């Protein structure tokens, strides 16, 4: 009898082992905005919702584009792309995935009221050819459509229609949208519950078309905004993973036997920009229009010191404006400028700009931004300049920046979601006109540079396009349009229960690749 009981319970135990739900608890530094990927175009929300929704293509472990809901594509004409869609894909409500879904989703994303419209700038329209073929019309010779499509997630057309959610939610109208609370994607996980600010639970979707590489059944996503609380939760084993281990807590986490650190370098390059207007905001003439002054500002900054002291050796000094993994990066340009205060002083003297006063606008968004700004301000003071540090939260600084009321400012640019140098050259460095130069807060205009950028915008040959982009980065470097400082450190931390979790330089965890 005893023997039987033992055998029975052993059998039960063995049987129950594979069925035991493996839960992965993610303590994030912030919450997602909503369950609607088209509600708020920030990379983090899109990254989390990528577990539920998928695009036609996606990034693999090496940030190369690979097929997802589309299996292949061809360029039919300078304005038309044809996509062959994957067959046998099911939405989480059981509906079949077809070309109609793609068309409805593209229509929703490109709606004038959609905050995601900017993610698919070249989109003109689409035609359903058959159930699994669709043609997409774009502006002429647009090379980056695939990059854009990685963040255009596909909704089920029928579900959108049934729930009256075909148009994106319009915050101006005051009417809530169905997709804000409900989700129905094709991705590896489906939403079980969502409590904003508290916990969102995702469970494995058994009908996923792809072969799962993960071994988890459940993701508990809890935002924990306070750095200290998040670190404590990790040390206490209340969470398995955080995508943001604060730089100042790294030694402590390293010392803990139960915690594993994953360290890498972010795609985000931190840089400084200058006003190129005739006057500084104080009304004085602007000496920074002279390239020698910009060179002097660059030579005065000791990148090594910032790297060692402020960033505790965790950042990567930059010589060019984009990080190495980004297409268009040129290793030949990536030699950080060595500090030379004497030469800086000489250049300032030569340009007749000794000791000029300017406003230095900093926010609180980048890693250790406050300390970086203070360090740089004191380095500039050392060569006789008079920077006035203006530090405030991003929400306060951004309006000043976008209206051009800054002299010198910080900027972090990761080229997301496009993941291409073109994002930087078209949005930050191109002359502010039309759809170009939205973040060209300094207001410079360099015709040579603009021509190179525009050429890259329509060059379909990848090699030629990347060469053009590298060339434009060279011009930016020679003219010191901006001073590159470093790529930020990227630190994820897990408990030692997590066996494998690929650290992505775009700072987006992809839990369909995790092993616990």
């Amino acid at each position, binding site marked *: 009898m005893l023997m039987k009981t033992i055998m029975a319970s052993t059998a039960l135990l063995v049987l129950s082992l594979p069925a035991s739900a493996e839960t992965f608890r993610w303590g994030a530094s912030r*919450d997602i*905005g*909503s369950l*609607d990927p088209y*509600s*708020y*175009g*920030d990379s983090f929300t899109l990254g989390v919702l990528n577990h539920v929704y998928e695009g036609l293509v996606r990034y693999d472990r090496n940030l190369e584009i690979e097929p997802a809901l589309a299996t292949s594509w061809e360029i039919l004409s300078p304005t038309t792309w044809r996509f062959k869609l994957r067959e046998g894909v099911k939405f989480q409500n059981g509906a079949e995935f077809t070309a109609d879904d793609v068309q409805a989703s593209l229509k929703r994303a490109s709606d*004038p*009221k959609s*905050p*995601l*419209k*900017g*993610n698919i*700038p070249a989109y003109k329209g689409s035609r359903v050819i058959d159930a699994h073929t669709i043609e997409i019309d774009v502006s002429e010779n647009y090379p980056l459509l695939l990059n854009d499509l990685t963040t255009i997630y596909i909704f089920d057309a029928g579900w959108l229609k049934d729930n009256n959610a075909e148009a994106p*939610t*319009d*915050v*101006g*109208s*005051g*009417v*809530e949208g169905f997709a*804000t*609370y409900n989700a129905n994607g094709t991705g590896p996980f489906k939403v079980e519950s969502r*409590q*904003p*600010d*508290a*916990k969102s639970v995702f469970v494995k979707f058994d009908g996923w078309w792809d072969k799962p590489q993960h071994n988890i059944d459940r993701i508990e996503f*809890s*935002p*924990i*905004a*306070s750095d*200290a*609380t*998040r670190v*404590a*939760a990790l040390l*206490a*084993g*209340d969470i398995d993973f955080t995508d943001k281990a604060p730089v100042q807590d790294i030694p402590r986490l390293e010392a803990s036997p139960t915690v594993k650190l994953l360290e890498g370098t972010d795609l985000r390059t931190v840089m400084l920009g200058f006003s190129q207007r005739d006057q500084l905001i104080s009304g004085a003439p602007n000496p920074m229009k002279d390239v020698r002054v910009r060179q002097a500002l660059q030579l005065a900054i000791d990148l090594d010191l910032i790297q060692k002291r402020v960033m505790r050796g965790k950042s990567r000094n930059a010589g060019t404006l984009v990080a190495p993994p980004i297409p268009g990066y040129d290793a030949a340009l990536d030699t950080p400028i060595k500090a030379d205060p004497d030469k800086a002083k000489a250049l300032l003297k030569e340009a007749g700009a000794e000791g000029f006063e300017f406003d230095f606008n900093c926010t609180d968004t980048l890693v250790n931004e406050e300390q970086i700004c203070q360090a740089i301000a004191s380095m500039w003071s050392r060569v006789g300049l008079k920077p006035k540090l203006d530090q405030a*939260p*991003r*929400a*306060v*600084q*951004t*309006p000043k920046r*976008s209206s051009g009321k800054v002299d010198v400012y910080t900027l972090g640019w990761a080229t*997301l*979601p*496009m993941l291409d140098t073109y*994002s930087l050259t078209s*949005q930050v460095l191109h002359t502010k006109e*039309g*759809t170009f130069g*939205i973040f060209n807060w300094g207001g410079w205009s360099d015709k040579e540079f603009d021509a190179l950028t525009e050429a890259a915008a329509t060059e379909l040959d990848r090699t030629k396009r990347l060469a053009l982009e590298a060339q434009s980065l060279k011009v930016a470097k020679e003219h010191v349009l901006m001073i590159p400082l470093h790529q930020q450190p990227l630190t994820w931390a897990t408990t030692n229960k997590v066996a494998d979790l690929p650290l992505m330089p775009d700072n987006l965890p992809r839990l369909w690749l995790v092993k616990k």
Partner: protein
Amino acid sequence: MIVFLIKRIGNAILVMLAVAFLAFLIFRFLGDPVEMMMNESATQVERDELRARLGLNDGFLVQYGRFVVNAAQGEFGLSWRNQQAVVTLIAERFPATFELVLIATIISLVVGIPLGVFTAIGRGRWWAESLQFSSVIGVSLPSFLVGILLILVFSVSLGWLPGYGRGEVVNLGWWTTGLLTPSGRAALALPALSLSLFQVTLVMRLVRAEMLEILRTDFIKFARARGVPRRPLWFRHALKNCLMPVITLTAMQIGNLIAFALVTETVFQWPGMGMLFMQAVTFVDIPVMAAYLCIVSFIFVALNTVVDIAYAVIDPRLRKA
């Protein structure tokens, strides 16, 4: 009495209008929500369109007027960040904050009143004086520090209690409660303790002062002369007479606690109204911030008005004031 009521309620409405006005004035200088709401690659035209749709181009008074008219109907619009109705967002968060405040208040009374009595009757003894002294520390420690210390001790070192979140909650239709599940109660312990600490010392000091006063009165002396034992003397005769101001204080402090809960909620990731407000500040979510400020001040104003009216009912002399 009716004139008095109308006067008090009129006052309350004026205060609310002033609060709403101030709130709007602050948000005017807070920053540009459009820059936070749009994707990096949105064009200038799209930004301008969104600004127009949100009504940000209208004059300040127009925006304020629109807000007041809508708010009076309980309509606070959509959160710009979450795209959910602000009223729903706040209603969802209110139970969390209310339970936290309720438990913190209970802790402060259950711990504060006996401590007050003991420090009063043991006046001059070393244990009473040291309690009195440590209460000074209780008042002066900032609550985020207390929160972090509690997390370090009870969550990281001892592993007894969770350091963040609300645990499992039970949904009772329009109210979610964490009080009915073990994990919900465990999650409530640390934030409630941290929030109540200040309150405990406040109650303790008030009870102590009142007790000292009453212990000197004649009726206590006569009671003692009649041979009433010490324990019933302190806890029945004396303490009863101390409780009126304590109850008034507690009622008035509930508004304070709701406002103070903001810091505690941030430290413990407690999904209440304070957390919602902090998130709104980061993203310049003006509808949420405006609604939060109005609702919290409404609670304050309502509590004060009710207390005033209650006093007037009890004491007719106050009606003329």
